[in-house]
């Protein structure tokens, strides 16, 4: 922990850091690449929609000695003409999926299966889904997604500002696209569980983003009152200082989901737990990535277009040029303009902490030797 703790401290003070904002073009590029891959995957391969969306029946049998081939044959005969997929489950039972089987036609199939397996009909779990049910769930989910996005953009625009809301929205869409793309490329089956998982990403992906933005808002509160750092630099500094927190929250969120995935996948073979946690796992990972590499740099980009920030950047540049000229560069010249700020309570947050940024970013600026 000590090493981690110290790293946290150094990140916090800005002694070490990664220039997320400066190198944003790389990350944008990577994200665009991933997104395109996801979209292409979606277009070419499409999603492997589960039985809940096409309509059909799923029978889950108890532990049995009958071979899956026999079961398949029985099911195919009984279901006459429908596609049958038999899957052996970890605990010895079988999962038999028959697509496009009407709710009325399913009953005789269940009876046949029970006969074949030599168990009571009631021992076979059935799930019969009308063809429109999955669509219902999906269309409702889309509706929910749209409403949520509108509301959350409004909320973030009020709580923070529209640029952050926009960036958060883009990051969110990015996460969802990646998750859907992974499903398309890998060919995981999409079930209502997947939809649930996907929708949960909404809250989670934004949780991380909001934590980062909150720090950013704090750090950039009185940004126009100083001339040492540009918005991008402050954003980057703020991002680095909250990095440990972002990583921790993500790890802690992923652990239970990982446990679910492990148990759902390993113990039950397939089903709701597995579906939810798989979508969540992919989405959470994408969410953590996007809140750090995409959302904040996007805000910085948008912010730098703001005339006030532009003039700030200009002032900072001018000041740095001047400072560079004054070779001697004693600390006084720089500290001069800060006292007023520091008195304004929360003001300089990222500002004063930004020590290393200039040298990393622009390769010029104040000599940093005096610092420590």
């Amino acid at each position, binding site marked *: 922990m000590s090493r981690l703790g*110290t790293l946290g401290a150094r990140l916090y003070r800005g002694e070490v850091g990664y220039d997320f904002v400066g190198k944003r073009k790389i990350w944008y590029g990577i994200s665009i690449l991933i997104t395109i891959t996801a979209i292409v995957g979606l277009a070419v391969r499409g999603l492997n929609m589960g039985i809940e969306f096409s309509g059909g029946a799923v029978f889950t049998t108890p532990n049995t000695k009958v071979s899956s081939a026999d079961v398949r044959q029985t099911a195919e005969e009984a279901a006459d003409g429908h596609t049958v997929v038999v899957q052996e489950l970890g605990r010895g039972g079988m999962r038999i999926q028959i697509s496009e089987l009407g709710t009325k036609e399913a009953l005789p199939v269940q009876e046949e299966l029970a006969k074949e397996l030599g168990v009571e009909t009631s021992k076979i779990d059935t799930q019969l889904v009308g063809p429109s*049910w999955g669509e219902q769930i999906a269309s409702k989910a889309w*509706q*929910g997604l749209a409403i949520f996005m509108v509301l959350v953009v409004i909320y973030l625009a009020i709580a923070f500002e529209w640029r952050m809301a926009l960036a958060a929205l883009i990051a969110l869409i990015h996460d969802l696209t990646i998750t859907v793309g992974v499903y398309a490329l890998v060919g995981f089956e999409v079930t209502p569980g997947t939809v649930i998982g996907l929708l949960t990403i909404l809250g989670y992906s*934004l949780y991380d983003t*909001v934590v980062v933005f*909150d720090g950013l808002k704090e750090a950039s509160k009185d940004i126009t009152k100083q001339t040492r750092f540009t918005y991008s630099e402050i954003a980057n500094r703020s991002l680095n200082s909250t990095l440990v927190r972002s990583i921790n929250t993500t790890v802690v969120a992923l652990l239970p989901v990982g446990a*679910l995935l492990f148990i759902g996948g390993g113990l*039950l073979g397939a089903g709701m737990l597995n579906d939810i946690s798989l979508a969540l796992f992919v989405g959470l990972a994408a969410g953590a990535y996007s809140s750090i590499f995409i959302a904040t740099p996007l805000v910085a980009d948008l912010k730098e277009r703001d005339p006030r920030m532009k003039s700030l950047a200009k002032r900072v540049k001018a000041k740095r040029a001047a400072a560079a000229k004054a070779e001697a560069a004693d600390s006084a010249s720089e500290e001069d303009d800060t006292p007023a700020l520091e008195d304004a309570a929360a003001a300089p947050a990222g500002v004063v902490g930004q020590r290393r940024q200039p040298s990393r970013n622009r390769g010029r600026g104040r000599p940093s030797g005096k610092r420590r």
Partner: protein
Amino acid sequence: MAVILIAIAALTGGMFISGHTTPRLGIDLAGGTSFTLEAKNQPGKPNAINTDNMNTAVGIIERRVNGLGVTESEVQTQGDKHIIVNIPKGTNAKQARQQVGTTAQLYFRPVTTTTSGQKTPDQPSSTPSPSASASGKGQDKGDDKGGKPSGTPSASSSASSSSSASPSTQGRALSKGLRADEKPSGSPSPSKTPKPDPSKSPSGSSGQEELAKQFAKLDCTTKSGRAAAAEKAANAKPTDPVLACSEKGDSKFVLGPSEVEGTDVDDASAVFESQNGAGWIVQLDFNGKGSKKFAKTTGELTTKQSPQNRFAIVLDGEVVSDPEVTQGAITGGRATISGGFTQQSSEDLANVLSYGALPLSFDIADETTVSAALGGEQLDAGMIAGAIGLALVVIYLVVYYRGLALVAMASLGVSAVLTYTIMVLLGPGIGFALNLPAVCGAIVAIGITADSFIVYFERIRDEIREGRSLRPAVERGWPRARRTILVSDFVSFLAAAVLYIVTVGKVQGFAFTLGLTTLLDVAVVFLFTKPLMTILARRPFFGNGHSWSGLDPKRLGATPPLRRRRSAAPGPADTKEA
């Protein structure tokens, strides 16, 4: 902190007082059958799917299900067009499905044409068709009385069914009854069959020519053909002519617009008709409006030639019975349906008819039957996953936050107890049932809850890194952490709330848990974690930054505790990031 402890005590107390110490389990965990019914739009009634109709439907379905002797069944609307029916294990799912899914849309339609059930109307069917008879009760009160002495039962005015072995009551003078198929049971060809011709030349309108073509093609002998026809007929407007099959598939019909509807039925009961051997029949009593309509219809029909003097009793698109009206209008308001009923089937039909036709027709959108064994297995898996997840989180927290992990664990514990008790109490309270997605939501919520602690702990550590001692750090860190927690929890809650309101089914259960745990998270952090931190900050173990406290300034790499180092080192004196 006291508040939260009182809340826990109160909730736990409430839990034991209410006598429920475990959450109500959903069908997928406890075993049982769950149906999701989806209301269908009916032609001609564009606004039929509304809250009133849905609530009526729920009431009717509830009575029907309870009529099966099911206890603890659960019927509720979900979203604007779905009804969830949950039936616990140990009930006959098959019977329940029939009762639940049956719309009981009952129409009395005049018969335009009828032939045997095959595609080609040459071969008469050999099975006797069910038939019905209706009797005029009110106006014929005297007749009924008159009938009794003559040895016929109260159903004297009603004709016997085709399966009846008794002599026909056709000639009964007193009853202006309407006759059903009067053929003795031995008759191989029901009376409908001999009239194939009118089918080719339906009465006039061009639209009916199309109908006639379809009619020729209609095959009622196969199950799928019947199902298709029934569905089509059930979905047709009551005012449109329809094609229909008889229940057994031995005959098919072209039927005119509906004259009397099932909603005009006041009461229905299953009666065993021993006198004339009809067996189990269903007696219908019409309400005032229905009696009038029925009288009018039968009055018109009686003047027509066979088979157009018949009317068909159409239940959910299938012709249950097609009696002939031979003796004038039936004005009494009573009819009986007979033919081939068993006790079970007649009681079911009466049950369905008397509890009312559903105002809407429904499709079974989803039916899930879970055996108790699988349910238990899923519950176990959920519990194991939860335990492992919790353990992993705790290990991570201990490794990273050391002493602070105790605070996190205590808070997680409080949160877990609160979640559990509230879920238990919500069971009887609002009918909350813990299902698999909800368990999943609760496990995922471990992460969300722990995230809040991390936000706060990191905040405190930041303050310590700036050289503060613990107690001020705890206090100064709080407002910032609080804001971050509130904002991010609000976003989570917003997601849960929108999902809960908009979505249906399993998604909703999940959203509910997530929303609940998010709210609890806020409560726990505010009322438990923060006060606990304040108290612990006074303890030397934490206050002095013991190396195992997780707050050791040295390990955190804190700057020397110089309060104002403005000129010496541009320390982040008032740095505040959230």
